[in-house]
């Protein structure tokens, strides 16, 4: 207890109460006390970061929120109320973009999400060359995404001499159109995205696996559990906190998928790979004179709100399960 606290507390109270509870609250009220305890220094250290975030992150966010109610070509601004939102919601391509984005997310969830968990568990069982396998799994992450996509464009060549089609030819499967076909394009993009993203997830799961107490496996073994029993009853329950976080991160990432459709197909063929983010890009930049910045920001705001709400609900719904 400080001298100041004693002076304030002692005259009124016959029995001094433990100072730990009320004291911090009182100290907060005094500016001098706050300064003396280092509050100012903390603020000073944080100030550059706060400044940078304000200028380059929060301020643009607020500006874009404001822009979603305006019609603008970045030179003239005109308040149009909810017109941009109405325009976006009545755009026939929006439905297509939402369905495509959900389809991408679903495919990525079914094929892309379990794969890194499976690979990580498998790799954690490997006794030799563990570092080598980790490096191998992480390699695609090191390749710059644009380079990776250009490379895969080459693999996806639809002619019989394309890399994948040559491989398929060895086992008697006829050449596939890959990204040149409205039906196959989206799964092809998911395949590349899975390849490109799995490495990062594997490393995170591998790290999480290290925190599983080995005694649990020993106990399970004593109980006669098979390897699959151990994975199902020990590994996965121990990993679930990480799995939940990875799941929500993946959902957010896939809802914002842009690079693959932008570089592989430009949203084609026939809009079969237009995603919400690509639509935002098109609103803003399709016309060389811009002009639809209002619609672009309106759709961005809607996407952000949707993702925020979805994340909140997801955490609420799974809070109990993930922390038990």
């Amino acid at each position, binding site marked *: 207890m400080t001298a100041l606290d004693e002076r304030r507390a002692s005259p009124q109270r016959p029995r001094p109460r433990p100072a730990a509870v009320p004291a911090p609250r009182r100290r907060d009220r005094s500016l001098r006390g706050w300064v003396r305890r280092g509050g100012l*220094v903390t603020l000073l250290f944080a100030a550059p970061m706060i400044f940078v975030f304000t200028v380059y992150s929060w301020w643009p966010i607020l500006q874009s929120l404001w822009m979603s109610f305006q019609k603008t070509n970045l030179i003239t601004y005109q308040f149009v109320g909810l017109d941009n939102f109405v325009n976006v919601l009545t755009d026939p391509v929006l439905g297509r973009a939402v369905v495509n984005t959900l389809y991408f997310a679903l495919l990525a969830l079914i094929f892309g999400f379990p794969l890194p968990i499976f690979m990580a568990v498998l790799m954690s069982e490997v006794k030799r060359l563990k570092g080598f396998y980790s490096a191998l799994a992480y390699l695609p992450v090191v390749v710059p995404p644009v380079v990776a996509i250009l490379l895969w464009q080459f693999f996806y060549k639809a002619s019989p001499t394309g890399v994948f089609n040559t491989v398929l030819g060895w086992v008697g499967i006829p050449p596939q159109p890959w990204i040149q076909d409205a039906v196959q394009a989206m799964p092809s993009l998911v395949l590349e995205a899975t390849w490109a993203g799995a490495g990062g997830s594997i490393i995170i799961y591998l790290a999480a696996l290290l925190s599983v107490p080995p005694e649990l496996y020993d106990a399970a073994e004593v109980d006669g559990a098979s390897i699959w029993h151990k994975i199902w009853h020990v590994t996965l329950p121990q990993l679930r906190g990480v799995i939940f976080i990875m799941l929500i991160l993946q959902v957010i990432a896939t809802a914002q998928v842009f690079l693959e459709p932008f570089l592989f197909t*430009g949203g*084609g063929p*026939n809009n079969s790979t237009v995603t919400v983010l690509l639509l935002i890009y098109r609103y803003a930049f399709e016309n060389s*004179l811009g002009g639809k910045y209002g619609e672009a920001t309106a759709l961005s705001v809607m996407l952000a709100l949707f993702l925020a709400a979805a994340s909140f609900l997801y955490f609420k719904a799974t809070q109990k399960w993930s922390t038990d």
Partner: protein
Amino acid sequence: MKGKTMKSPTKVIAIAAAFATVASLAACSGGGASDGKIELRVATFPPGADQAAYDAFATQEAQFEKKYPNIDIIGVEYEWEGPTFTAQLAAGSLPDVFTVPFTDAKTLLENGQLADVTEEIEKLGYADKFNPIILDAVKDADGHLFGFPRQAYALGLQYNRDLFEQAGLDPNSPPTTWDEVREYAKQIAEKTGKAGYATMTQNNTGGWQLTAQAASRGGFLQSDDGTTSTIANDGVKATLQFFHDLRWEDHSMGDNFLLDWGSINQEFAAGNIGMYTSGSDLYTALVRDFSLDPAVYGLTTIPMEDGGKVLGGGDIAVLPPSLDDATKDAAVKWVDWYYMQKLLNEDAAAADAKALADSGQAVGTPVLPVLDQATYEESLTWIEPYVNVPREQMQGFIDHIFEQTPVGEPKSHTQEIYALLDPVVQAVLTDENADIDALLAQADTDAQALLG
């Protein structure tokens, strides 16, 4: 101790604040000439242009400054790109002289983003020398002029002479009807395994090329005043049917249907495409940027049917409206000297061609004259000694382009209409059962919604 630590953050703030103030002041005080010369910032080349282009520009800059010693030319890298352009326009960092394509000039002048140069053009004395169709792109409703059309192109049929030979076709007799194009494409595909014919499909270029090929069949996308969509016409339908037949019956369009201006050029330069339509001035870019072997290049006119017209385009040298009188005067001098005199004046034309040829740039690529045909043809004789492109391989185009009637791109919402048509072209090329009538009806409704 505490007293000391209290002081040092204050000092830190003071120093940081002083530093920030100084830095911002320094940033504000950049630029500005002090020797009495007028500084004129002019657009030069896109970022990444080769050194030869800069060498040629430096020569011309020196020549201009010698003639006008009170003007200091500052070359600024510049590229017509939607996002960058809008940002530069908003930030006021555009050069004092820059170029914009015909398609966007109307919107810019209607928005009041270009300077009125009617008086200046009249004073220079060549207002009535311009090709009237081209001058229309820079004219407002009252007949005021907002720019100097500086170069134009017509769409032409590009072809690979090497693939023609491999397929047993005579590269000196390129096809003259759409039926022949189909026939030739089929033969190329069968004999060489390459795409006999290809068309752009992405990033608004699908709509652009559909517009061009439909125009050659007499089909136009809008009424003359740009208020009514006429997309679902016979010319557009015939073009899509042509794509369908080549793709699904003849299998002569290869296997890549996600092509834009850059990627189709790349495929063509790599010898994977027999024929496609693009601008008549493409040779320069194909050789300089896509490493095309000049010997395999061929260019002819697009076949015309049923009152068809040839789609043209080009760009215009313009000034922002915010220039003060002295700078505007200097800017007009530059435009006249750098862009216009080489079209009008023998000495200027020869000097320009020499500067380009000396630094290995293409001279003599076929264009659509922005001035009248007589002046254009005369200008060709001035530069003859410096022509370094194989004009004999472009004979089909050179001989017949003046028999064709040029037409401008759709007037209203051009890029957005093109964007609407990209998926239509893609649908026909990737879905054998695509319903062309239904696709066009939908595109027509969407386009009419844009036109209002």
